[in-house]
């Protein structure tokens, strides 16, 4: 691995945020295990019976993470899903509460209480999405906690999977490669078996089940070879180096008046797609929706996008009227502001924004220009 932006203050992160993560075990000290591919369905079924299982599914050409009723629904893709894991924890539309007028008084019904307290297991997450969850945790669970996010996020077991080959737009190697450093179990395809890294106590409990066997030195070598091959392929396409996080942020910060923003402002269509597919974008709008006479209604939050015209509008002024200011804001909010605040990038190199941008704006090219 080249570098991991989230490595900093990992322990503080766990205690501060109070999320019920299992304690990290030092995976270097433990030889991994492996599981034969023909036993994987059995293992997943075992998981499904113990947890509410989520995994990649594919429907009408759209792959995403979904709830699994039967193991046969799982799509074993060679790379990340098209839609990120974000909607599982932070849905596009969330009802906060219901209000009802009663004799001049309002009765409030908090929908938070209706969110299931389930123990989730997510199988088949990729490094980009796992890192994105860590970034989201920082935004949503810092000094003020988002209760709706927290309730979904708590008690989630993460069983990751290395990619077999990258998508065209991927560049996770700029952020530390395919394997993040927080997970419960991590699977890597090594031919007849999956090599399994153990990342937590809970993960260790799981591999004590009958499906796993001890891995050999050779298996581990195979895993490393596999990871290296894929990461080299990603690197070959990416050709950006963002390793020195503080320095890069400084570099980008200096470009606040660069002509690049003018150029991108002309291209950008302000469609907001990059925000919606981004696994770390978390902006939202809050609105009240009522029945025709206003006697009852709901307060709803819905995803918002910093590219939209009305995003920074107040009663007095629109603070980001110009498109170029909005384009710059998004790039800064990925690579400068979060570095200043949390010491991490809010980008994990999933490349989804490159994939969906109708104007063909490629964040890798933008970064290459900003950092050169």
């Amino acid at each position, binding site marked *: 691995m080249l570098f991991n932006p989230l490595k900093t203050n990992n322990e503080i992160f766990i205690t501060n945020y109070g999320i019920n993560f299992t304690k990290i075990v030092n995976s270097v000290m433990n030889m991994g295990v492996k599981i034969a591919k023909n036993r994987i369905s059995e293992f997943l079924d075992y998981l499904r019976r113990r947890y509410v299982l989520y995994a990649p599914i594919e429907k009408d050409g759209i792959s995403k993470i979904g709830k699994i009723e039967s193991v046969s629904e799982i799509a074993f893709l060679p790379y990340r899903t098209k839609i990120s894991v974000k909607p599982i924890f932070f849905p596009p539309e969330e009802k906060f509460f219901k209000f009802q007028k009663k004799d001049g008084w309002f009765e409030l019904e908090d929908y938070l209480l209706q969110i299931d307290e389930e123990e989730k297991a997510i199988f088949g997450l990729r490094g980009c999405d796992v890192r994105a969850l860590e970034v989201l945790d920082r935004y*949503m669970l810092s000094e003020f906690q988002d209760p709706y996010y927290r309730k979904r996020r708590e008690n989630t077991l993460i069983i990751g999977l290395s990619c077999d080959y990258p998508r065209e737009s991927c560049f996770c190697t700029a952020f530390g490669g395919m394997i993040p450093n927080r997970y419960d179990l991590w699977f890597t395809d090594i031919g007849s078996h999956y090599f399994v890294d153990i990342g937590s106590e809970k993960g260790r409990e799981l591999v004590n089940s009958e499906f796993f066997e001890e891995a050999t030195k050779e298996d581990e070598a195979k895993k490393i070879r596999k990871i290296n091959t894929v990461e080299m392929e990603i690197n070959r396409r990416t050709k950006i180096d963002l390793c020195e996080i503080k320095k890069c942020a400084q570099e980008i910060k200096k470009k606040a008046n660069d002509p690049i923003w003018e150029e991108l402002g002309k291209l950008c269509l302000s469609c907001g797609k990059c925000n919606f597919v981004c696994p770390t974008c978390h902006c939202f709008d809050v609105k009240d929706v009522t029945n025709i006479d206003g006697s009852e209604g709901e307060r709803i939050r819905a995803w*918002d996008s910093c590219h939209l015209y009305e995003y920074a509008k107040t009663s007095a002024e629109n603070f980001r009227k110009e498109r170029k200011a909005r384009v710059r804001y998004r790039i800064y909010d990925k690579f400068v502001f979060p570095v200043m605040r949390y010491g991490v990038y809010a980008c994990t190199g999933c490349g989804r924004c490159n994939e969906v941008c109708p104007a063909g704006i490629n964040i890798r090219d933008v970064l290459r220009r900003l950092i050169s």
Partner: protein
Amino acid sequence: MNNLYLPFLAEIKEIREETPDTKTFVISAPLKFKPGQFVELSVFGYGEAPISISGGNGECIELTIRAVGNVTNKIHRMKVGDYVGIRGPFGNGWPIEKVEGKNLLIAAGGIGLAPLKPVIEHVCQNRDKFKEVTLLYGARKPSLMLFKYKFDEWSKHMNLLLTVDEPENGWKGHVGVVTTLCDKIKHVSDTITLMCGPPIMMKYTSMVLIELGFPPSEIYLSLERNMKCGIGICGHCAVGGVYVCKDGPVFSLNRAIRFIEKPHEVQGVLD
């Protein structure tokens, strides 16, 4: 789990007309707040709006509101005994502790006097803790000035400098924008400035104060943004890497001019 998005219900206890478009609502909310903090005011069915607290006594808070949007227009149509929702208080508030033992300049424009009123009241009650105190207040017209009924009392404790842009019948005071009064301030050194008003007023007043020798690190401004959540998550109030709702709304001028994305309120200051 404490749900920060869930407002509590609060009754409107009293309504005072301040100007033709501004009213003060006394709301039964037992909140401890720092001067300069704000609450998220809910009018169910109309939404939420961030409103700064203009006074309070531990049992009630006062909100001085101008009718501009959906929420504020609706609350103007509400009566005593009606219920609204409150979340908060949010934000950092004015750095009053830094002012103690020093001179204080309070500069306000229009509705910007509302978040400064708790500071003025604090000064009146603890006058011996402060040295020279000046209140500089400008409004478009005399009839649009807030809290006029308080001016007599306030002037016992501090030097009041008032100005209007357009005089109306009976106005004998100064005419002109706030900056035209700045040279009447008698204390420059050892002075902390607390400022709130429309972006353009804060921008030009900052410029003039700097010219008069007030150091930017001693000037504090309160920024207005579209805070939807109040807790630094929704992103709407973000400017140059800070969240106005939880890192602000009060920033020193020194800090605000160094935001990566320079806020409109200070654009052109020290450029």
